[in-house]
């Protein structure tokens, strides 16, 4: 009796290990994919490679889990399948700001803040392997086509929102032809 069940039980244990690991590995991709869908539609544009300039987070507006109510978020859902994506971040004087590039697995491919740029514009070229960044852009090589570029700007007072909003809307996220990125 025991011998009859031994091999099936071992197969069941192997299946459990595979399902356990598969679930853990799949979770970030699934949640990131859902976030890209939600964030890409945050300002109704629903398009990739364009910044969505969302309002400040409140209890009624929470596009992602654990949003900071002190930060203004601007997000660009990028897609490198047709070429590279260039990101230009307009600096906000005397405020903490940063641009972070998250890949489809949720890993951070790059973070640049006002501390790193000395308060100057951050210019990043999001590329696949084998592509070359245009002059003036820092190359960020990604292992996946899709992801999110996220700008955070810290407000010391919510009353600053209007002024900061006007500045951040100068930031750009745009595609560039793969031909222009050839080495």
């Amino acid at each position, binding site marked *: 009796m025991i011998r009859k069940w031994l091999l*099936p039980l071992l197969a069941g244990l192997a299946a459990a290990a595979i399902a356990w690991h598969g679930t853990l590995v799949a979770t970030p991709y699934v949640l990131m994919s859902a976030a890209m869908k939600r964030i890409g539609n945050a300002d109704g544009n629903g398009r990739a490679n364009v910044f969505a300039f969302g309002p400040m987070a409140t209890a009624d507006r929470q596009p992602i889990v654990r949003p900071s109510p002190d930060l203004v978020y601007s997000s660009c859902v990028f897609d490198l399948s047709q070429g590279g994506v260039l990101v230009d971040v307009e600096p906000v004087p005397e405020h903490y700001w940063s641009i972070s590039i*998250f890949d489809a697995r949720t890993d951070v491919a790059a973070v640049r803040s006002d501390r790193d740029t000395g308060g100057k514009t951050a210019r990043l070229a999001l590329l696949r392997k084998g592509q070359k960044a245009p002059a003036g852009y820092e190359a960020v090589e990604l292992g996946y086509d899709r992801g999110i570029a996220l700008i955070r700007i810290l407000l010391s007072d919510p009353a600053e929102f209007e002024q900061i909003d006007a500045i951040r809307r100068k930031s750009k996220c745009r595609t560039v032809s793969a031909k222009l990125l050839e080495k």
Partner: protein
Amino acid sequence: MKPWLRYSICILLGLAGGTVYAVHQVRGADMGRQVTNGPWSANTDQGTADASALTRARVALFGLLALPAKEAMYFIARTDSEGKPLDGRCIYTVNGGELDARWWSITLYKGEGWLVKNEANRWSVGGNAPERDANGNWSFTVSPQSVDGVWLPTGRTPQFDLTLRTYHPKGALLNDPAKAKLPTIKRETCA
């Protein structure tokens, strides 16, 4: 029972059990508990390729798009300093000193990490809000109803957590967060 049926039963149970256990593990903790310091827990490898599959899954659920540690350290407290779960019907005093970071804030969340509706429309206390005493120490109140001084509303949610964000952390805050001096959370009274 035929052999194929025995295999089918065991494999199906295995697949279901493995999936349920993974979901339980991911949901059962915060962004990870690599480091604990009093009531606070933090993860030091979020967003990096070094993160384990479990850490990556937890961070995706509880703090998607979190910054890596050198840019920001996130500490989450689900209990007070005595280990009792934070309860939105109670009044707490949060006490601290200067934190070795460019800026910090403490935000109140419920569930996986959602801001709580409250009458004051306030969800966080920034590092510039509480007054300092002569030694640089500060305090504020977390409570269901308005109080004098700096106040963070609980919205009477039964359970909540406090998330301490520190941007551009330095010193122990970044390099030895288990020993950094972090705020205390003292339960005063409960309704």
